[in-house]
């Protein structure tokens, strides 16, 4: 293959230069086109892609030879508008006139003034040259051209003479008109030759650009049927699919097109774009290699090939390609050449990823002079030194970086790692002391750095921590830093630190109240400003809210609001406290109060909207968010969709789900799926753009991001919701009909309303386009198989978020409903490996076990689905060997359940799971299950006694167990959650 070929490459390169020289001579003789044109090199190829679009077709000859000569004369007077097009596929299959799709496509990539002979020249000088006038004045639309070499040649086909006609235009101004003309020309030909495949295909392409998609498909298909061996037809079909973002199909078409014209540069190029889009790395590599072989004098093709090897993790070849290219550069680019710098850094990245840091460092030093991005260079150098365990040098490198930016966490991390020669989170207590010394030294040096002030808090413990945090908090409270708590919260992983903070701030509060100082006796002349007291109150409120001590948090925040009632932050925090306490309605009201304090604050407006949705007020919410959406959008929702505003869709979807409006909820979750699909599609343009601009490192990281895109938490949440809804629909198919009924009556009402206020027809028309044909999401509800729909959301999670236990648990729910027992078992095993104590997993394992046991007992013909008995035997066999790894058989299931409970003492979710299992094992044991749940009132459950958990327990008692204990438990909850509207019967459900 490729490796070891660099010698022959050098030879090739030599050839290129020779050839180029020769070509230049030829051109000079032939055309005398301005020097400027010649200098234009192919790199600038697609620079002006947007400016012009050209289409060509053949029409019965309207051009007289004389006229053509006249044109030629004119071209000399306006050299910038003269173009030579080399028609490679002049005669395909002998006599049939061809559409000049390929050269035209190439040309369309650049503006007419950038065209030159090089563009489409190939070595065969016998080929005719077409001269084309790319516009005569502002509005030239149709351009006749002469066929050159030496005289214009007209094509005679079936007793009619044809000349080539190009349609060209400035896309910005004449787009519509031009497609129309192209269409007309095509239709003219079709009148005489209705079965000419390529013209039919072209007609389809024009139609596609004119938003007549369906017809477009029809014509392209028809064209293809008449001319199955035409690469043009296939290419057009591929283009059509591509514009529909149907990349898989497009790929197939390109494969076909290449079959009939294997060295077509344009098709190959497009082909490779699709391959990288589809992440078909092997094939991508092949195409890039072919492209380079066809065009070895262009940087893009070299880099493209290097990338393709890189993606295949063939670092050696990737590097060789880049090296070969760099070596053949005749003269070194200037010192501040950004593109060259990026290419070299990319080269370095390849070496780094190959794992050879020694070599990477060496290379880094070698390219130092040519690098523009000094910061990246320094970061890489420090990293390599650290990886190579050259600690003193690494330390120095990181100190240098810190002096550039003393607020970058990674630099400190690197510094500490190199200073102590181990990863910064494995430090001994002695080393931690030393870290504090380093911090002190740096803090003195970089007084404006916020990070260096915070860093000691992470490493100090006990008394030293108290000292440091005391200093840190005093300064922040004095200054007024609203985000102080967010910074402190991270330290709470150590409960000792949490207590220290709490104690200190409580003290501050007392002292500030009595003598306006953080300490008991004020030192010196100065007193603290009243804002210090305010921020201390604010901090404490957040602190207690974090501990879910709602009443105490409320007390402090109310005091703060009384102190300074104009501060938006205070109301926002109050809203949050109320939300956590379970009073969503009041939380919403307080958020609205906050919003009214500052109407131009988008953040608080969005927060308020979210709280409205949490409180199940979607109408209010859309009104509120509408204050900040674009005014010219037909309605806020459309604008939010255009802007890919996902948090809103998520919250609204969940809101509808709580209200049992599943159609609308699904609508929102599908919307999020669409946003993610769009983001995936959007990368398509970057495959060419990044190669051209040589932003290669960014390009690589973008490709990697796209690969992981759906692991984003927004997608996860949307998918989880959608899957759960589909599973629910699957289990309760009735709701679909009910929803349909509801929607019908609603539609009737709406129709009646509309009939009353008849709107003018004009307005109607403009609105129609934006209107959704399924605003209530009915179509999404009425699916053939909800499970199939669920799987569409599940699949990306399985590939991209397999490490989240929810993925596996959802997978189990799906497979068990699909009656795919082995896959269900696999999901359980995976979940077990992530967290074997997960309470839901515990229930699922038992459920699975019972299900399989039941199947085993049944007669083979009763089993659902009906499978071959031997098949079932095979399943049972696998289960027999695999299930014990996650469910030991030694004990009875009851005993196993009790063990599970004993292992997870004091956890409400586990208690709930245990009572659930008990009920599964013996449906009669409701009493016992209820008794178990009532244990939750004991103090040992304090840590897991969240509102959400208690609601689950209560609902289990009330609904599933029909227990008389439910009321008793509820009364307890009333005490625990004194402002929760759920337990105080103010509202039906809780978020």
């Amino acid at each position, binding site marked *: 293959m490729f490796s070891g070929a660099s010698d022959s490459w050098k030879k090739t390169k030599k050839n290129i230069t020779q050839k180029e020289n020769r070509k230049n001579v030829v051109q000079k003789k032939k055309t005398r086109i301005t020097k400027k044109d010649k200098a234009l090199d192919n790199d600038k190829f697609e620079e002006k892609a947007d400016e012009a679009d050209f289409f060509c077709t053949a029409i019965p000859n309207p051009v007289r030879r004389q006229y053509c000569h006249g044109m030629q004369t004119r071209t000399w007077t306006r050299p910038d508008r003269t173009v030579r097009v080399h028609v490679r596929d002049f005669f395909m299959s002998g006599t049939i006139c061809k559409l000049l799709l390929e050269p035209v496509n190439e040309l369309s990539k650049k503006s007419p003034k950038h065209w030159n002979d090089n563009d489409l020249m190939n070595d065969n000088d016998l080929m005719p040259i077409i001269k084309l006038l790319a516009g005569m004045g502002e509005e030239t639309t149709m351009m006749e051209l002469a066929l050159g070499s030496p005289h214009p040649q007209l094509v005679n086909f079936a007793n009619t003479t044809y000349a080539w006609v190009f349609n060209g235009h400035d896309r910005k101004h004449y787009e519509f008109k031009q497609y129309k003309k192209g269409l007309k020309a095509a239709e003219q030909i079709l009148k005489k030759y209705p079965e000419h495949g390529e013209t039919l295909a072209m007609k389809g392409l024009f139609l596609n650009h004119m938003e007549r998609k369906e017809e477009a498909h029809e014509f392209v298909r028809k064209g293809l049927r008449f001319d199955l061996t035409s690469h043009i037809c296939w290419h057009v079909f591929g283009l059509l699919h591509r514009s529909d973002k149907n990349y898989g199909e497009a790929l197939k078409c390109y494969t076909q097109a290449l079959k009939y014209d294997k060295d077509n540069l344009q098709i190959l190029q497009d082909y490779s774009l699709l391959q990288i889009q589809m992440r078909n790395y092997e094939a991508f590599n092949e195409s890039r290699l072919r492209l380079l072989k066809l065009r070895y004098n262009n940087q893009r093709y070299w880099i493209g090939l290097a990338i393709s090897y890189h993606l295949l993790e063939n670092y050696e070849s990737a590097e060789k390609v880049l090296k070969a290219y760099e070596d053949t550069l005749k003269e070194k680019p200037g010192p501040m050449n950004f593109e060259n710098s990026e290419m070299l850094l990319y080269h370095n990245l390849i070496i780094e990823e190959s794992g050879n840091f020694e070599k990477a460092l060496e290379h880094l030093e070698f390219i130092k002079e040519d690098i523009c991005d000094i910061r990246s260079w320094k970061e890489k150098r420090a990293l390599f030194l650290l990886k190579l365990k050259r600690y003193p040098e690494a330390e120095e490198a990181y100190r240098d970086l810190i002096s550039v930016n003393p607020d970058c966490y990674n630099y400190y991390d690197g510094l500490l790692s190199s200073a102590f020669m181990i990863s910064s989170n494995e430090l001994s207590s002695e080393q931690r002391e030393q870290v504090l010394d380093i911090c002190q030294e740096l803090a003195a040096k970089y007084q404006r750095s916020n990070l260096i002030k915070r860093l000691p808090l992470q490493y100090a413990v006990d008394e030293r921590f108290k000292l440091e945090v005391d200093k840190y908090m005093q300064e922040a409270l*004095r*200054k*007024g830093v609203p985000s102080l708590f967010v910074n402190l919260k991270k330290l709470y992983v150590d409960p000792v630190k949490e207590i220290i903070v709490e104690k200190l701030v409580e003290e501050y509060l007392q002292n500030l109240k009595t003598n*306006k100082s953080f300490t008991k006796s*004020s030192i010196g*002349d*100065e*007193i*603290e*400003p*009243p*804002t*210090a*007291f*305010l921020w201390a109150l604010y901090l404490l409120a957040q602190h207690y809210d974090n501990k879910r001590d709602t009443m105490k948090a409320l007390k402090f925040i109310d005091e703060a609001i009384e*102190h*300074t*009632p*104009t*501060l938006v932050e205070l109301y926002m925090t109050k809203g949050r406290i109320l939300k956590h306490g379970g009073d969503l309605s009041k939380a919403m009201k307080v958020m609205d109060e906050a919003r*009214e*304090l*500052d*109407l*131009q604050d988008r953040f608080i407006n969005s927060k308020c909207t979210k709280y409205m949705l949490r409180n199940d007020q979607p109408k209010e919410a859309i009104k509120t968010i509408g204050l900040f959406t674009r005014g010219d959008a037909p309605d806020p929702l459309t604008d939010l969709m255009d802007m890919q505003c996902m948090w809103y869709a998520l919250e609204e979807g969940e809101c509808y789900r709580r209200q049992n409006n599943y159609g609308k909820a699904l609508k929102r979750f599908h919307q999020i799926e669409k946003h993610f699909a769009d983001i995936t599609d959007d990368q398509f343009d970057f495959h060419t753009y990044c190669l051209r601009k040589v932003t290669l490192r960014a390009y690589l990281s973008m490709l990697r991001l796209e690969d992981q895109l759906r692991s984003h938490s927004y997608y996860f949440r949307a998918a989880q919701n959608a899957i759960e809804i589909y599973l629910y629909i699957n289990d309760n198919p009735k709701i679909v009909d009910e929803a349909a009924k509801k929607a019908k009556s609603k539609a009737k009402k709406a129709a009646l309303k509309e009939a009353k206020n008849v709107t003018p027809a004009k307005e109607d028309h403009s609105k129609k386009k934006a209107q959704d044909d399924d605003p209530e999401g009915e179509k999404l509800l009425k699916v053939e198989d909800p499970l199939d729909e669920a799987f569409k959301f599940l699949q990306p999670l399985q590939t991209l978020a397999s490490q989240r236990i929810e993925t596996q648990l959802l997978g189990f729910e799906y497979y068990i409903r699909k009656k795919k027992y082995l896959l269900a078992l696999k999901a359980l095993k995976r979940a077990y490996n992530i967290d074997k104590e997960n309470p839901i997993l515990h229930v699922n394992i038992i459920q699975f076990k019972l299900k399989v046991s039941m199947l085993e007992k049944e007669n083979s013909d009763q089993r659902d689905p009906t499978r071959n008995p031997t098949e079932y035997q095979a399943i049972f066999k696998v289960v027999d060997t695999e299930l014990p790894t996650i469910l030991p058989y030694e004990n009875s299931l009851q005993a196993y359940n009790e063990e599970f409970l004993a292992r997870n003492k004091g956890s409400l979710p586990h208690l709930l799971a245990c009572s659930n299992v008990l009920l599964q094992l013996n449906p009669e044991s409701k009493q016992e299950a209820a008794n178990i749940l009532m244990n939750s009132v004991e103090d040992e459950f304090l840590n897991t006694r969240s509102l959400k958990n208690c609601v689950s327990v209560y609902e289990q008692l009330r609904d599933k167990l029909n227990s008389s204990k439910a009321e008793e438990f509820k009364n307890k909850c009333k005490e625990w959650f004194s402002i929760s509207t759920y337990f105080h019967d103010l509202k039906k459900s809780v978020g």
Partner: protein
Amino acid sequence: MGAPTKETAAENVAIENCETNKGSDMVTSKTIKSNKTLKRTTVHRIALGEITPNNLGQLKKLNTVLFPVQYSEKFYKDVLEVGEFARFAYFNDCCVGAVCCRKEPLKETNQGINSDQAKLYIMTLGVLAPYRNLGIGTKLLEHILQHATSTTQHPKFVEIYLHVQTSNEEALNFYKKYDFEVVATVEGYYKKISPSDAYVLSRKL
């Protein structure tokens, strides 16, 4: 003298005692002499800011806390029109006080209405309780006085005046320091609070 309508009645109850804070230099200067009743605060930034439709909510909050009178929508509408004569005061970036004035034409002069001259009426001036004695009220009043006497001001203000509840010693002392004088007493000026009488304080410009 055009007495204000009751609902837009002037309130100047929440005025700080400025006995120890002389002049605006205390805002920035560090050389203020230490005093037994007042020490300099460690962080001390005072700034004034515009009142706009977007932050009007904050003015409403302030007024409900500071003054025992409910203000009408008209009050808030007018506030947006007077430009420099309505300002928020910020202490360490928190909004803690405000001043709102109204321009009034001169009436009943010998020549009829004089369009070149006018009066300025301070409708409200107040600072939240925890933030008093920090020079914030001074800053607000000085801002008003400075703009009222500005040479580019048209029409020219000849007088600045306001109402103060007769029992509000704090406020009276504050204004007297700035050469305001009691020129009249309006009986029953306040409807719902006691004492219901108000002094009219005025200063010629």
